[in-house]
């Protein structure tokens, strides 16, 4: 299944590994931050509504 990478196996595999890892880290970080900020904003907005009514 694995293609014959020959003597360049280390180079090819490491470049794929590094690139994919960097992309994954970027995506995970972006999604995590997005969720956190959305949650925090909602709680601040809710607090603002409650203060206005109360």
């Amino acid at each position: 299944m694995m293609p014959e990478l020959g003597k360049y196996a280390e180079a090819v595999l490491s470049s794929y590994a590094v690139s994919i890892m960097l992309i994954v880290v970027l995506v995970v970080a972006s999604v995590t931050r997005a969720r956190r900020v959305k949650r925090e904003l909602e709680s601040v907005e809710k607090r603002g509504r409650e203060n206005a009514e109360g």
Partner: protein
Amino acid sequence: MASIWQYANPRKFIETTDRILPWVAGSSLVALVVGLVWGFFFTPDDYRQGSTVKIIYLHVPSALMAINGWIMMLVASLIWIVRRHHVSALAARAAAPVGATMTVIALVTGAIWGQPMWGTWWAWDPRLTSFLILFLFYLGYMALWAAIENDDTAADLTSVLCLVGSVFAVLSRYAVNFWNQGLHQGASLSLDKEENVADVFYHPLLLCIAGFVLLFIALLFLRTQTEIRARRMRALLARERLG
């Protein structure tokens, strides 16, 4: 007081992107997986470069996005300067880390690709050097955003920096070419997409490029939403502290 957004534009942006983000992300994933799998497993080796040619499926798309990311930031900065749409400024801010990551990927894959040819892990090839300088520009841009507290001031300063930086980035490209023209002429890495990339490599490469473009757009939408919300939150917190 109902949850009123101070700016209609940002709300529409979030509404619209919320709807299409899943599609963009999904197509990006498909394009990337198909493209990379096809390129990695089902294409032959280059007679000169051996199996290292498979690195183009990552190097070329990331290099393209590294540059296009900066260009997008430049356009967004110009829109901010001229029309003062906050979403533009925030989009530029959101794009920077994505572009910077693309630049790092391009640098790492470029260096690794060159290693069997040059025998060293890094060579001051004009192309690679230009990407290194581009990375420094990205870093400076992100650092300036982070250093300024006031949102509008930060947007104004960073947009001018992006403009000036763009001019100098182009100047640097020429300078670096001049600087390294004498050496490595024969061994210069043939990464030009203008060069004839054989058909058999071409289609998976196109898919990978498409995948990276869609990935950039998806991350851009997501991150800009986050910036809009963060800005809104800062405004609300400031109001809380005063009132």
